[in-house]
């Protein structure tokens, strides 16, 4: 019987070492240790061995069993190792060039989306504009002191007998009368986003900048509607918790006129270094002056409206806490700046 064991062992060793995969290995294991396996059979037959050599045979069988089991396990592991090819997941990727949209483009897109949500039509009107649309049609006759606030660039061209001088529009409000003349019959819900120009250049002013102008004209438009629209904008653009407030102000083309404040996002309106008593100034707004409606051929006794015009850059800066110390950076072509956004 001892010989039988030795021969079974040697045969098994040869089979295991020459096995090519797990499946084969598993078949070998079953052939050896399965219910009718060779080794299992040998174990059963220990009882037939004479008593005096039974212990010796027992030891041999156990040793054989142990050796074969170890070898099986070893062989199984070696299959796993061989299947694992060398690979380095830490090697860095090859990136495509990363492009960037300008902050102003991002701002304009967001602002447009907010107003399109309440049926405002985005429009664009001339940057090089007649004095009449920029001032006179907005209830600012020639020589009016209110014109001082717009540091206006004048273009060297012949004056138009009807519309006067050519200017670089200092505000998007020049689109108000143009929109009225285009639409003719209200309702009007306009959002005009365009480049504007003023003779100014310092850390918070650039000669070329952008404004967005809202104009709503319909029957029975009230201050309540203006407040509603501004709150809708503030909450969509700045965040649900933000509020706006109106304070009295004066513009020639609106009556009443307002300065619009938004609650400070930094301190939740409690008051901090960045704000004035919990509020930040957003810009101007007002109820469209009847003379402006008249300039746009709209009957002021039937229709009323509101308008607001704010700086795109300024408004966007207030949003994300993007503290840009010098706004002129926006209009430099410096990639070290542009690739940050």
């Amino acid at each position, binding site marked *: 019987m001892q010989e039988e064991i030795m021969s079974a062992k040697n045969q098994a060793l040869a089979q295991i070492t020459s096995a090519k995969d797990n499946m084969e290995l598993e078949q070998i294991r079953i052939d050896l240790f399965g219910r009718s396996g060779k080794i299992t059979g040998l174990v059963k037959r220990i009882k037939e061995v004479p008593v005096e050599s039974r212990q010796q045979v027992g030891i041999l069988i156990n040793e054989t069993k142990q050796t074969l089991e170890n070898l099986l396990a070893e062989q199984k592991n070696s299959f796993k190792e061989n299947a694992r090819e060398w690979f380095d997941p830490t090697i860095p990727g090859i990136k*495509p*060039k990363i*492009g*960037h*949209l*300008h902050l*102003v483009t991002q701002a304009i*897109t967001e602002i447009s989306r907010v107003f*399109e949500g309440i*049926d405002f*039509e*985005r429009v664009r009107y*001339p*940057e*090089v504009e007649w004095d009449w649309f920029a001032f006179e049609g907005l209830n600012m006759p020639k*020589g009016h*002191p209110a014109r001082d606030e717009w540091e206006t*660039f*004048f*273009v060297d*061209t012949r004056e*138009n007998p009807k519309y006067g001088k*050519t200017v670089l529009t200092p505000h998007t409000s020049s689109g108000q009368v143009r929109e009225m003349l285009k639409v003719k019959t209200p*309702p*009007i819900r306009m959002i005009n986003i365009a*480049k504007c120009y003023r*003779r100014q*250049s310092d850390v918070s002013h650039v*000669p*070329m900048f952008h404004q967005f102008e809202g104009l*709503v004209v*319909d*029957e*029975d*438009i*009230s*201050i*309540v*509607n203006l*407040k*509603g629209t501004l*709150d809708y904008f503030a909450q969509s653009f700045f965040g649900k918790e933000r509020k706006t*407030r*109106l*304070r*009295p*102000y*004066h513009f020639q083309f609106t*009556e*009443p006129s*307002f*300065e619009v404040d938004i609650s400070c996002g930094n301190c939740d309106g409690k008051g901090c270094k960045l704000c*004035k*008593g919990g509020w930040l100034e957003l810009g101007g707004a007002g109820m469209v002056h*009847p003379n402006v409606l008249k300039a746009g051929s709209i009957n002021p006794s039937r229709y009323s409206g509101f308008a607001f015009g704010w700086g795109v850059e300024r408004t966007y800066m207030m949003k994300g806490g993007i503290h840009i110390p010098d706004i002129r950076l926006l*209009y430099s*072509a410096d*990639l070290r700046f*542009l*690739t940050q956004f």
Partner: protein
Amino acid sequence: MDIKILDSWLREFLGTKAKPADLAKYLSLSGPSVERIEKFGADSVYDIEVTTNRIDSTSVYGIAREATAILPRFKVHAKLKRTKTSSSEYKFVKKVSYLNPVVDSKLCPRFCAVLIKNVKIGDSPGLIKTRLESAGVRAINNVVDISNYIMLELGQPVHTFDYDKIKKHKMVLRESKNGESIATLDRKIFKLNGGDIVIEDGDGRLIDLAGVMGGNLSAVDTNTKNVLLFVQTYDPVRIRKTSMGLAQRTMAATIFEKGTDTELVTPAILKGIELFEKLCKGTPEKEVIDIYPFPFKSKKINLNLDFVEKRLGVNISKKDISDFLTSLEFETAWTGNNLTVNVPSFRSRDVLEPEDVVEEIARIYGYHNLPSEVMSGKLTGRSTSLQFTFEEKLKNYLSGWGGVEVYTSSLVAEDYVSQNALRLINPLGTDSEYLRTSLMPSLINAARQNSGTFESFHLFEMSNIYLPKKNDLPEERLMLAGIFEGYKYRNAKGIVEAFLEKLRLNANFEINESKGFAAGKCSSILIGTEKIGYIGFPENSSNVYYEFEVSKLFGLTQKTTVYTEISKYPSQVEDITFTLPEKTMVGKVLEEIRYLQSTINNAELRDIYKNSYTFRISYHDNTKTLTDKEVEQIRNKILQKVKEKFGGQIKG
């Protein structure tokens, strides 16, 4: 206009227990905006922005008057302590013995003056000095200080003449003539263009540039004995023209140019008389000359309750409306729901129409008390033009392939623009004097700024160029342009090609000479026969530059795409390598192959090695699978054509 108001001075006219911080807050919510409160010793100074229409508030008294109307709405008691508006001691008359004025009332609607004799010139008392100082005005001597004090307290500019320097005690207030000159208090001499308001004395000398600055010839000095205290109102348009024209922006001029209240003249001169007696121990004449041919008549404005409620957007009681307006010194009378409002003199230039009255009601009601509701009503039926989203898409494509968007200035130097470009009359500098006619110089400049710092980049911009038109506004043409640095021509062009392909535009590149580009290094980009843009090397530049007219891209791009059936038969693809003679235009070769016959559905350049070019050619027939034999026939045609037309040989 920003003014500084001392708290204790304000409370001389305003009876209230409101703390400065609350006062500031309430005023800002319903009236003039208090920008900040500064400590001034134990006192406080309010820094207040008064809007141009509210010149009546540009004074201590004016702010007190506003506060009196506003504070009660915040449940704070307030009472106005009124200034003196009449006197039994002094008579206002049209003629006096001590002065002979000839006044053009169109220039000066109210001319008022009084002689004060035996004035003792010296320092003002401490209180006056402190108050002037709190407003940022330097104390000089009691006479000058009185003028400034009255202006700050009541908002009425006041002037003083040395009476004895007015020759023959005659004054002719008239329009200046072109070429006249005047010496002013600050010892400057101004040559006038005509149309300014001036005063001439009995010897025909100009002694005052009225409303803007006093004349040197009649100035009060340390030897002055008799003073003519002078309080007027002027035509605001003239004052503004003179003040702007001569760049003399005195406080008096900035007040007068907004149009002052003719009724304010009386309290101002009475206050002046009082101060001259007190501070200078002077003796005023009992008769005040007052040339005021058209005394103030209150204007009536009619409106109704419905109008007020519609503009406000809430219901409001007639009593509240009356109360609010009365607190602002308007008089109100209701007939049913119709309201007649009498406007006080100090608001007569500002409150002209029903809308103006609504503003007064609304701000005292409190904008913060109004609800907030987006308007209801019909949709406009006009949705935003698709061009805006199209523009966004163009930018997204380019940035998706690594482009960085820039915004460069529309205002450029002369060497950036073509002839007859629009020029500014008042540019900030010569580097921003013209409206650009091309984006190319701006982008070359932008690339130059970054070159050296970055190895390779692609900048792009979408902006208008301005092309002059005769007797009209210029054409504002929206361009999309880009520049590559450190890109091989093929890589740069590939982005432009991919961009066009994304737009499903089947574009042709045609060699062309174009302005600003180096000779032979520019192609125009065409869709059919329509030129939509350019690509190439600008003169003296190693950067590839391209530009498109956005409206053309928009116009030519298909708004929807039609489905093309996917072929049931496979294409056969093979690579063929040709050796081409030097200076062969490879694009032309590919084009020739591609359009040789309809069974060739694609031809691409795969590889270049020296003068060997490998093309990948795809053969396809929609009706069947091409046999090897058929492909061979087509291939032979290609080989023949390339040999004939370009002298190219198949390699190997």
